[in-house]
């Protein structure tokens, strides 16, 4: 190792070089992950005339967003309600046979135990069964290259491993060289190496945390641009007796699918935003605490690609 001149550099100069290495590694990691998703070479599909709320929800935030949308739907239809301490409880109203589809039935069954909101997101069995029901939607989105390709996950892992090996390897080499010369203060180098690896993992997480591919993001953005203003305006009429409120019901699921519960803050239905911001991360674009590192597969927590 003594053949490597940079390892013999004095501390401050070595740290400059080490910082440069870290920057190059982070840039390489960014490029690896970015280039693994080249779905944006194609323009996004046309904005749908009648958006499917579940499709939008799944694309926007995976299973978590689907759960939010289903809960709002069932609450609107009077089958479940939000109770104190973030509990989701069934009401006395019972659906007629055939009134609910399979996913709605799964959610209603899960609500029979009066769980706290976060429990719904952590229920692996529920997530798995929802994913089974979502398989056709998932296949359709994958065929359109709207969800992240499997290559992103592969390259993320490769980039994380490779980047970590380079950063830690350079740091360890310097430590070995310095120790071979005698006692040395290497605390700052160790701290810097640890922080760099953390930054590398954070970068990889941020770049891959969403379910949608780059093409999928462009598609969601197009939908927001086309319909968002109207949906946001409609939120103002929640709870009012006028025709605007009736019109809103038609758009409500699409709104929740596209934005999550956050637009409901400040409305008579703000309790959804409050309850579920405690139950899961309220921005639909993330996988929530229960994702289990499986971002990119719809939050399957093992449901797999």
């Amino acid at each position: 190792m003594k053949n490597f001149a940079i390892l013999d550099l004095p501390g401050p100069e070595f740290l400059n070089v080490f910082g440069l290495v870290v920057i190059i590694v982070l840039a390489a990691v960014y490029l690896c992950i970015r280039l693994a998703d080249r779905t944006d070479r194609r323009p996004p599909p046309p904005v749908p005339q009648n958006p499917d709320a579940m499709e939008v929800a799944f694309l926007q935030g995976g299973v978590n967003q689907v759960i939010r949308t289903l809960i709002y739907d069932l609450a609107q239809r009077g089958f479940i309600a939000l109770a104190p301490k973030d509990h989701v409880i069934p009401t006395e109203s019972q659906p007629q046979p055939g009134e609910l589809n399979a996913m709605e039935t799964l959610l209603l069954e899960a609500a029979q135990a009066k769980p706290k909101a976060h429990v719904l997101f952590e229920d692996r069995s529920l997530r798995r069964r929802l994913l089974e029901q979502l398989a056709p939607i998932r296949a359709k989105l994958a065929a359109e290259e709207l969800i992240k390709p499997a290559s992103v996950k592969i390259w993320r892992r490769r980039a994380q491993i490779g980047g970590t090996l380079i950063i830690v390897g350079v740091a360890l080499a310097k430590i070995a060289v310095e120790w071979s010369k005698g006692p040395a203060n290497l605390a700052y180098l160790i701290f810097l190496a640890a922080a760099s690896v953390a930054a590398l993992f954070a970068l990889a997480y941020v770049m891959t945390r969403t379910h949608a591919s780059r093409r999928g993001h462009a598609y969601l953005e197009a939908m927001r641009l086309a319909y968002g203003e109207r949906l946001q305006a409609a939120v103002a009429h929640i709870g009012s007796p006028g025709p605007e409120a009736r019109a809103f019901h038609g758009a409500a699921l699409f709104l929740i699918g596209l934005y999550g519960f956050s637009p409901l803050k400040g409305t008579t239905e703000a309790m959804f935003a409050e309850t579920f911001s405690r139950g899961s991360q309220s921005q639909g674009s993330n996988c929530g605490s229960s994702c289990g590192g499986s971002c990119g597969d719809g939050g399957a927590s093992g449901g797999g690609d």
Partner: protein
Amino acid sequence: MAAIDAPALGSGIGYRPQFRADLFAHRDRIDFLEIVADHYLDATREKLDELDLLRSHFPLVAHGLDLSIGGADGVDPRYLGKIAALIERIDPPWWSEHLCFTRAGGVRIGHLASLPYTQEAIDAVARNVDYLRRRIKTPLILENISCVVRVPGAEMDEAEFLTRTLEATGCGWLCDVANMHVNAMNFGFDLDAQFERWPWERLVQIHYAGGRARNGLLIDSHDAPTSDAVWTLYERVVARAPVKAVLLERDENIPPFSELIGEAERARATLVENRRWR
């Protein structure tokens, strides 16, 4: 022979952001959109995204307001540069402006002002069109405007002025049937009698709209449903001349979108009846 070589676009609506969501929800019932060019000249990122979104979903044409094509002091090169950039961005089959002036002596008058119906005015328009064609190759079509007052000293009537201007410039015609009707009513000329004197061979696009009467004058205010009289004129024009596109203008008192679609579909039915559209 057609005034310009461009595809037919069918029945469209003048785009206004207020009904953007409705537009996308009923995309299959609108054949094309016309954007007001001036709304996108110094556009924010969001407006440009909107423009790109519209362009990726609809055929677009651009309609300018403030070029002052009839201005004796020429076209503002900065304004023209912005229009050229917009036209390049959306690449429409044609674009349109009003046959009028909106600036004089360097002062913006904020209004579509009628040109004097004189040869001198025709020459000014021709000079300006020549100048702007050096920047913009996309065909320009010129729209007849509604007049509140007419400039004294006219050497010809509106039909002749328009015909000679289009001949001198080689431009196509954007026929605003509502403006024709308004001018006929307000200035008391017999549109039926002089119908054949208008330059139908140069027709490219039609605008139609509703207006209202105020103090005994008809105003082309784009704030009401198209009147029966304008529909009658529209139908006569479509039957008379090949037209590539017809467009509803509505700026104020915007009704439920279904009413706008109803008007656009009525206009399309006339196109289809006359084999101007598929």
